[in-house]
C-alpha cells in the first residue's frame, strides 16, 4: 500500500491525495473535451464562409472579389440560412474554379444550429458528463472510505464540487433541441 504524507502536521494517506488529484484531472479533462469540441464546432462553421465578410446590418456576405451574396432561403426545418451570389457574376469570375463547382452562383450555407443541437455536440457533451460522473463516483467512493479518517474533508470538498460541476453542465444544456436556435435567430449573433 502507499505511504502517508505529512501536511501541516497532519498525516494524510497518499492514496487519498491521489484520488483527489485524479478527480481534479477529470474535472479538467471533462471541461477541456467540451471546450475543444465547442471551439472546433465554431471554427468548422466558419469554414463555410472563409474569406467572405458578413455584414450583420444588411444581412449579406461580400465575396473576396467584391460580389454580394444576399439571403436566398431561410430553411427553418434544416436550420440553415442560404446566401447566394448572382450566377452571371460567378460564371464570369476568375476564381470560379476554386469557388463554385457549378454554374448557379456561389452559395453560402450558414448553419443556425447551436452546439447542443447537433449530434456531434451531444456526443462530446455526454462524454464530458460521463467524465464528470466518474469524478463524482471517485470522490463519493473516497468519501465513504475516508469519512472519519484524516483528510476526509478533502474528499467532501471534491464530492461537493463534482456535484456543482455536473449540475452546472446539465443546467447549461437546453432541454429541447431547438431552444437555443430560437434564442439566436440571426447569424449575426454568432
Amino acid at each position, binding site marked *: *500500500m*502507499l505511504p502517508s504524507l505529512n501536511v501541516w502536521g497532519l498525516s494524510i494517506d497518499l492514496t487519498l491525495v*491521489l484520488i483527489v488529484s*485524479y478527480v481534479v484531472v*477529470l474535472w479538467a479533462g471533462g471541461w477541456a473535451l467540451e471546450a475543444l*469540441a465547442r471551439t*472546433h*464546432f465554431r471554427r*468548422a*462553421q466558419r*469554414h*463555410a464562409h*472563409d474569406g467572405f465578410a458578413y455584414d450583420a446590418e444588411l444581412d449579406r456576405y461580400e465575396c473576396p472579389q467584391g460580389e454580394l451574396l444576399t*439571403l*436566398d*432561403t*431561410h*430553411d*427553418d*426545418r*434544416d*436550420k*440553415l440560412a*442560404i446566401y447566394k451570389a448572382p450566377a452571371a457574376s460567378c460564371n464570369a469570375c476568375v476564381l470560379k474554379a*476554386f*469557388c*463554385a*463547382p457549378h454554374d*448557379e452562383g*456561389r*452559395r*453560402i*450555407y450558414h*448553419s443556425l*444550429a447551436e452546439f447542443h*443541437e*447537433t*449530434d*456531434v455536440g451531444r*456526443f*462530446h457533451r*455526454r*462524454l464530458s458528463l*460521463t*467524465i464528470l460522473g*466518474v469524478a463524482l*463516483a*471517485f470522490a463519493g*467512493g473516497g468519501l465513504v*472510505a475516508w469519512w472519519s479518517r484524516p483528510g476526509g474533508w478533502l474528499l467532501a470538498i471534491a464530492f461537493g464540487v463534482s456535484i456543482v460541476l455536473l449540475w452546472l453542465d446539465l443546467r447549461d444544456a437546453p432541454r429541447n433541441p431547438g431552444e437555443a436556435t430560437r434564442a439566436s435567430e440571426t447569424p449575426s449573433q454568432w
Partner: protein
Amino acid sequence: MTVSSLWLQGAVLTFVFGFAVLTFSAVRIYQDSAPMPDQVVDEAGKVLFTREQILEGQELFLTYGLMQFGTVYGHGAYLGPDFTADYLHREALHMAGRYGGDEAGRQRVRKELQENRYDPKTGTLVWTAGQVSAFGEIHEHFGELVYGRKVSGVGLKASMIRDPEDTRKITAFIAWTAWTAVARRPGLAYSYTNNWPPEELVGNSLTGDAVMWSALSLVALLGGIGIVLGLYGRYSHAVGWHESEEQRIRFIPPADVALTPAQRVLSWYFLVVAALFLLQNLIGGATVHYMVEASGFFGIDLPRWLPYNLTRTWHVQLAIFFVATAYLAAGIFLAPLISGREPKGQRLLTTALLVALAVVVFGSLGGEYLSYHGLLPRGQRAFLGAQGWEYLDLGRFWMYLLIVGMVLWLVIIYRGLRPRLGTESRGNLPWLFLYSALTIPAFYAVGLLTNTRSTFAIGDFWRFWVVHLWVEDFLELFTTMLVALIFVLMGIVSERFATRLIYFDILLYSVGGVVGTLHHCYFSGGPAVEMSLGAFFSAAEVIPLTLLTVEAWSFLQLGNRQQVGEAATFPHRWAVLFLASVGFWNFLGAGVFGFLINLPVVSYYEIGTLLTSNHSHAAFMGVYGMLALALLVFCTRYLARPEDWSEGLVRFSFWATNIGLMLMILGHLFPLGILQLGDAVTNGYWHARTEWFRNYPWLSWARMPGDLVFMAGSAPLVWLTLKVALRTRSGPAAADRSATAAAGASLFTEVSPAPAAGRT
C-alpha cells in the same frame, strides 16, 4: 489522374524510405540480437541445458498459453508476473542470501550477473554456482505457482503442465531471457535488453541512450507538430475534409437502393460480426474478473475449463476477428457501388468466404483450447492448436487458412472493381482501394516469419510487423479509405478531395508509422539502434494523429450538417456518429494514451502494465471497433427491410458502447495503470507485476459498471442483425447491375434549394 501525379510519387517515395529503414533494422536484429548459447554449463563444465532445450521451452511456454498469462520482456498478458523480471529478482535475492546477504554479497551478485561469460566461438555460456543454485529454487517456485499448482488459482487450473522434463525446459527458457536482461553486451555497459527490467539488485537502470532518445523524440514531436500544423494552416483548403462550396444533398432512401446478390449475403456477415463482438465482450468480462477472483468466477472453478490464459487469448483473437469480418464485408459491399456492376459468381465466392471465416474462427478457438489444456500431441500443438504469440495466438494451420481466406476476399474485391479499374488511372481512388485491400493479406502473411522456435527478439520483431504495421498502419489506411469512399458515395466530399486526403494519410503514416514499429522492440533483446529509431519515429507518429484529429473534427461537421432538423430523412445518422467516435478515440486512445507510454524513459517502467491495456482498449476498440460498428450500421441500413430497422436499438448501442468504454478507461484502466507505474518506479518492476493490483480490490471492482454498460451495448446489434439476416431486403431487383449504379453509383442526389420569399 484525379489529382496531381506528385501525390503518387510522394507516397511511393516515403513508403520506400520507411521500408528501407525497417529492412535495415531487420538486418541488424539478425546480426545483433541476444545470442542463444548452444549449451549452458556450470563452472565444472557439466551441461545444465542446451539451445535445443531452451527453444523447446519457449515452444512449450507459448503453446501452453503462458504468454497470455504473464509476460516475457514485458510482452504478453498482465495477470501473471513478468517471467523475465521475476526470475531476475528471485535469482538476485537467492544469490545475495547465498553470499552472506551483506553489501559485499550484493556487489558480488551484481558483478557475477553482469559479467558476460558467453563464448561465441564455442557457443558455451558458463553459469556460476550461485546462478545454478538459483535456477533450482526458481524452478520450484514456478512449479508451485504455474506448472503444477495444487488447486486453481492466479487464473490457472491445477496441474497445468505435468511432465517434469517439460517444466524444466520452460524454466530454462525463462532463465535465458533473464540472462539476456542482465549480462552486458560485449564491450558495452548495458545488457542485451538495454538494461530492462529496472532492477536495483542487479544494477539495471535506465541507459543514457534511453534518456537521450526520449529527449530527441520529444524535440522531433514538438518541431514536427509545429511544422505540420503550420503547413496545414496554409494548405488545408487543398487536403481537408471540405469543399470550396458545401452542397446540399438528399440521400436515396435505403429501401430504394438496389442490392446485388453478393451484398445480400453480407447480412450474415454482419450477424457474425455482432455475435463475435458480443462473445468477445462476455469473454472479456470473464478475463478481467480474474483480477478480483483469481480462483474462479463467483465460486465456480472456471480455470478448470476456461483459465485466464485461454479467455485472454479468445478475447484478443475475437477482437481481431470481429473487426476483420466487418472490414471484409464492407469491402465487398462497396465494390459494386464503386464499379456499378457485379460479375456473376460473386455471391458464391462471398458465401464460400463466410464458410471459410467460420471454419478459421471456430477452428482456431478450438485449437487454442486443446493446446492450452495439453490435449494435442506435442508435434501438432503449434500447428493445429496455438502458436501462442500474443495476437498471433492461432495455430499455424489456421493462420494459413486465414491468409487463404483474405486472398479469396481480395479476389472478390478485384472481380467487383474490375469493370471500373479498366477505365481509371492507376493512381485514382478505385485503384487505391485495391492497393490498400492488397496490403491486408500481405502484411498479415508477414506473421508467418514468426514461429514458436524463432529466437525471441526475432520472433517478436516479425510479430510486431503484424501488430503494428498491419493493425496500426495498413488497417488505419484501409479505415481512411473506407470512410473516404463512403463519404464520396454519400456525396459529402468529392472524389478528388477524398483521393488527396488518402495520399496525405499515406505520406504521414509512411514517415512515422512504418519505422515507428520499432517502439515495440525497445527491450526485447534487439540492438540499441532499434530503440533510437523506434523512439524518434514513433514520436513522429503522433503528428499525423494530431492532424487527423483536427481533420476528424472537421469531417464530423460534414455529417453533422445533415443531421440537424432532418434526422428522420438522413439514413446514416448513427453510422456517422460511430465514425465521429472513431475520430474522438483516435485522438484519446491512440494519440494521448499511446504517446503517454511511447517514450523509452516511460516504457522502461511502464511496459506490460495496465497503462498498455488502457491504450489498447481505447485505441483498438475506440478506433477499429467503433469503425467496425459504423460499417455494420451503414451496410445493415441498406440490407434491412424498413420495418425491421430500429433507430432505437442502434442509438442505445452507440451510447452504451461509447459511455461504457469511457467508464472502463477512466474508472479502472487509467487510474490503476498510473498507480502500477508508480509502484514500478518506487518498488521495482517485478513488484508492480506480482499480483500487485490485489492491493486495490475496490479499484478492480470499479471496472464492472463500465463493462456492464459496454456489454449491454453489444446485445441489441445481435438482435438487429439477426432480424436482418433472416429477412434481408430483396428489392428493387438487381441481377448484376444495380439501380444505384444506373443512378450514378452513388447514394445521394444533389438538391438545389428552392428560392424562398424571405425568412419563414
